[in-house]
C-alpha cells in the first residue's frame, strides 16, 4: 500500500482549503447515437490538483475526458445533455469557439502521437498557429525542460521526433501541450503504452506539473491513480459511482462497487 501513502503525502490536509473549482460537469449525459456512454455525471475538478478518473474498460472515462475539451465534437453522432463549465463559462455555450477551448485545455493521448516533423517543430507549431509572437527558441527550451526531456534532446532538436523512444515521444507530446500554456491538461491513459521506467518518469513529471497546471488523468491502472492523484472519480457503466479524495476512495470507499473495484474483485 506504499502507493497510497505517497498520495497521502501529496495531499496535505490544507489541500482542502485550496479547493478552487476550474472544470465543472453538471448532470452530463453523453450519447453515441442513442446509446448513452455517460449518464448524469456531475463532477467538479479542482484547480492545480491531479484528478484521476478510474473505472473498468468501457465505463466511459475517456468519453467523459474528451468532453472537457470538446474533442468529442469530431465523433459522429456524439451528443451531450447537461453543462460543462470552465471558470463558470459553459464551454458548449453559443459564442464559445471550440478551438479556443482546446488551446486552454490541452490533451495528451493514450498512444504518443508526435507529428512526423522535427522535435523543434512539434513544440513550436501549436504556439505559431495560435499567433505566438515571443522567442520560439526559448519557448521550446522551457517546454522541453518542464516535460523533463530537454537534456535528452537538446543536441538534436532538428532531428525527427519519430526517432525518439516511446517514453520520450510521450514526454514530447506533453511538452507540446505545455508550450501553449494551457491551464488544464487532460491525459487519456498517458502511460498505458509505455514500459515501467518511462511510466515512472511520466508520473514524476505529473507531480511537478501540478504546481502550475490542473491535470485530469484517465487511467485503468489503480496503483497509478493512487500514486499520482489527489482526487479520484470512479466510473462504472457510464455512472459516477464515487468521487472523493484519493486516500478515502482507496482506503475507505463509501460504495460497495468502488470497494470491489479498487480491491481488484472486478474490472
Amino acid at each position, binding site marked *: 500500500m506504499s502507493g497510497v501513502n505517497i498520495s497521502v503525502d501529496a495531499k496535505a490536509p490544507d489541500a482542502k482549503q485550496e479547493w478552487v473549482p476550474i472544470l465543472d460537469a453538471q448532470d452530463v449525459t453523453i450519447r453515441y447515437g442513442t446509446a448513452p456512454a455517460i449518464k448524469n455525471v456531475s463532477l467538479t475538478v479542482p484547480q492545480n490538483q491531479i484528478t484521476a478518473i478510474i473505472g473498468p474498460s468501457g465505463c466511459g472515462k475517456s468519453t467523459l475526458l474528451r468532453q472537457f475539451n470538446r*474533442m468529442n465534437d*469530431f465523433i459522429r453522432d456524439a451528443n451531450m445533455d447537461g453543462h460543462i463549465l470552465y471558470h463558470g463559462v459553459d464551454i458548449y455555450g453559443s459564442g464559445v469557439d471550440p*478551438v479556443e477551448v482546446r488551446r486552454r485545455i490541452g490533451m495528451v493521448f493514450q498512444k504518443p502521437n508526435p507529428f*512526423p516533423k*522535427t522535435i523543434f517543430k512539434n513544440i513550436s507549431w*501549436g504556439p505559431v498557429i495560435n499567433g505566438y509572437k515571443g522567442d520560439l527558441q526559448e519557448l521550446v527550451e522551457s517546454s522541453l525542460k518542464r516535460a523533463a526531456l530537454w537534456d535528452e534532446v537538446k543536441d538534436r532538436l532538428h532531428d525527427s521526433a519519430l526517432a525518439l523512444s516511446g517514453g520520450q515521444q510521450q514526454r514530447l507530446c506533453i511538452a507540446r501541450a505545455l508550450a501553449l500554456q494551457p491551464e488544464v491538461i487532460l491525459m487519456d491513459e498517458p502511460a498505458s503504452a509505455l514500459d515501467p521506467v518511462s511510466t515512472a518518469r511520466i508520473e514524476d513529471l505529473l507531480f511537478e506539473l501540478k504546481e502550475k497546471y490542473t491535470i485530469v488523468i484517465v487511467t485503468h491502472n489503480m496503483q497509478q491513480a493512487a500514486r499520482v492523484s489527489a482526487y479520484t472519480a470512479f466510473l462504472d457503466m457510464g455512472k459516477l459511482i464515487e468521487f472523493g479524495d484519493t486516500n478515502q476512495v482507496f482506503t475507505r470507499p463509501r460504495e460497495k462497487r468502488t470497494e470491489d473495484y479498487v480491491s481488484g474483485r472486478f474490472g
Partner: protein
Amino acid sequence: MSADSILRPPENLRRRRVKAAVFRGVTMALTWFCLVLLAVLLVHATRQGLPWLDSQFLSDFPSRFPERAGIKSALYGTLWLISLTACFSIPVGVAAAIYLEEYASRTRLNTLIDVAIANLAGVPSIVYGILGLAIFVRWMSLGRSVVAGALTMTLLILPIIIIASREALRAVPDSIRRAAFALGATRWQTVRHHVMPQALPGILTGAVLALSRAIGETAPLIMIGALTYVAFVPDGPMDAFTALPIQIFNWVSRPQAEFHELAAAGIIVLLTVLLLMNATAVFIRHRSQRKILK
C-alpha cells in the same frame, strides 16, 4: 515410433500442397503472359518505328510524303493539352477530395455525391467527348481549341483524381488530426500543415495515373474536333491542335506501310512522354517524402 513416421505428411496435407502449387503456377503463368504480350508489342513497335525516329521526325509537321512527315504538331499539342488538363484537374480534384474527406458530414446528399463520383469514373470517354462538344466547344464558344480539349479531359479524369486523393487523405492516421486539434488548430490549419503533406505522395500518384489516362485518350478529342492535319504548333490555349494518339490513329488508318512505321515511331514518342511524366512524379514524391520530416 521413428521420426520418419511421425513427420510423414498425412494425405490431406499432400492434397493441400498440390492445390497451393497449382494456384501459384496459374498466377505466375498469367503474370508472365501479360508481360510477354507487352514485350512483344514494345519490340514490334520499336523495330518498326526506331529507324524513323530522328530529330527530323520530332521537328517536322505531318506530310503526305512519309519521308517528310513528322510529329511536331501532335507532340506540342499533347504537351499543351496535358499541361492545361493538369492545371484544371488537379486543383479542382484535390479540393473536392479535401472537402469530401475532411469537411463534409455524412448527409444523404454527400453519400449521393460519393456514388455519383464512383459512377462517373466508369462512364465511357466518348460520352465526355459529346459533353465537351456541347458545353465547351458550342455553348461556351471555345471552338476546337486546346482549352476546350483540356476541359473535356478534365471532366474525364476528375473522378479518378478525386477518388485517388480521397484514398490518400484517408490513409493519414486520425491520431495526427487529433493531435493538431488538441493544440487549438482549426480544420484548415490541420489539413494544410499535417494532412496534406502526408497525403501528397498518394495524391501525386493518383494525379499522374489520371493524366496518363488522359494522354492516351483519343475518342473525346476526335469528338470535339481536334484536327488530324495540323501544320502548326499551338501558340496559345485558344488555338486548334492535334494530339499524339490522334496522329497515330491517322497514320495507322492509311494504306501505305511507311505510315504504319511512322505510327510505331509515334507510339515510341507517346510512351516516352508517359515515362517522363511518371519519372517526374516519382522524383517529386521522393522529395516530398523526405521533406515531411523537416
